[in-house]
């Protein structure tokens, strides 16, 4: 869904892990799921501290 976020003009975009659990993973162990959530959140913090001049997907 990041393409929709880009289309409507969201400035700082981070891809989540699926529509049903953007910050989780039902298939993973609790530890792995936590690591994944942490990774996505750290990416969001990187996005917040980066200057952008157009919709940008942070990978």
């Amino acid at each position, binding site marked *: 869904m990041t393409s929709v976020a880009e289309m409507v*003009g969201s400035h700082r975009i981070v891809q989540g892990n699926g529509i049903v659990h953007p910050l989780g993973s039902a298939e993973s162990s609790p530890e792995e799921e936590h690591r994944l959530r942490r990774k996505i959140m750290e990416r969001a913090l990187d996005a*917040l501290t980066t200057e952008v001049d157009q919709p940008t997907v942070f990978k």
Partner: protein
Amino acid sequence: MARIVLYLNQFFGQIGGEDMAGVGPRFTTEVVGPGRALIGLLEPGEGLAATVICGDNYFAEQPEKAAAECLGHIRLAQPDIFLAGPAFNAGRYGVACAALCKAVQSQLGIPAVTAMYDENPGVDVYHREVIILRTGQSAAAMRDVLDRMLRLGRKLRAGEPLGKPQMEGYFPQGRLEAELADKPAASRALDMLLAKLAGQPFQTELALPAFNPPPPPPAVRDLAHAKVALVTDGGLVPTGNPDGIEVSAASKFAAYRIEDRLEPADYDVSHGGYDNRYVKQDPHRLVPLDVARELEREGRIGQLHDEFVTTTGLANPVNNSRRLGRGIADHLKEAGVDAVILTST
């Protein structure tokens, strides 16, 4: 004799500027402000019966009371046509004009027209119910706009059907009307495609909403001293959904206090657009409070705002989403929040 009543704010009504924005509704039979241009446009048999004037702040702070008081004055003037504004890009004025038009047409049964700029919040709120003419931002076009308002007002009074919004210059009201086309849809689509390929103008039959995003906010310089808030449009609500956030096209948002964890038993999901069971099993899969607290403890972020803000984004019209976004931004700014992580399903 067609009696016209005009509504103006304190500025156009020549009472004063922002310092007089608190004045309550008043009524005059003198011709003031845009009324002068208006009387020059009247046809024989038309007259400006009265002008009702109210301060922008008085109206914005107590819209129902102000509207009722204005309506009292308007009723006494026995109008045949009610014109409000034009408000151009003045937000409080635009909302007041549109609210009064709505009240006048529904409670007095009198045709009402206002006019304002695209981005005036009055358009967002009232375009479906009120005839709002599209204007530019500059009041220099006053005479021309008043002329257009008057023409539409006359049509409404005569019971003539209005043309399409783009022909008459008012904001589309979201009405669907069946009409016969001279060619089937496939031919029309092909004509459009050919025109597009040839670089010629063409008129779409299904305009997509324009998003007009604001400019990107600057990067957060010092995250270690910033206050960060968690926001979601995935519909996470406390069990029982105390504020009644709708499962689709939510009309409101709510903010709920958070501690260290989101216990599954304490939360539910009010969102009809995705399979909610994974988030119900563990709400952190939508609102990452656990990790956010970790990052706060480690000093990566200065402070986590002590509530999360939630609404339901599903099938929400752009205008409504924009209104909710503004509301959420105002709420968080008031709380001193510097940055937001918004999680979306």
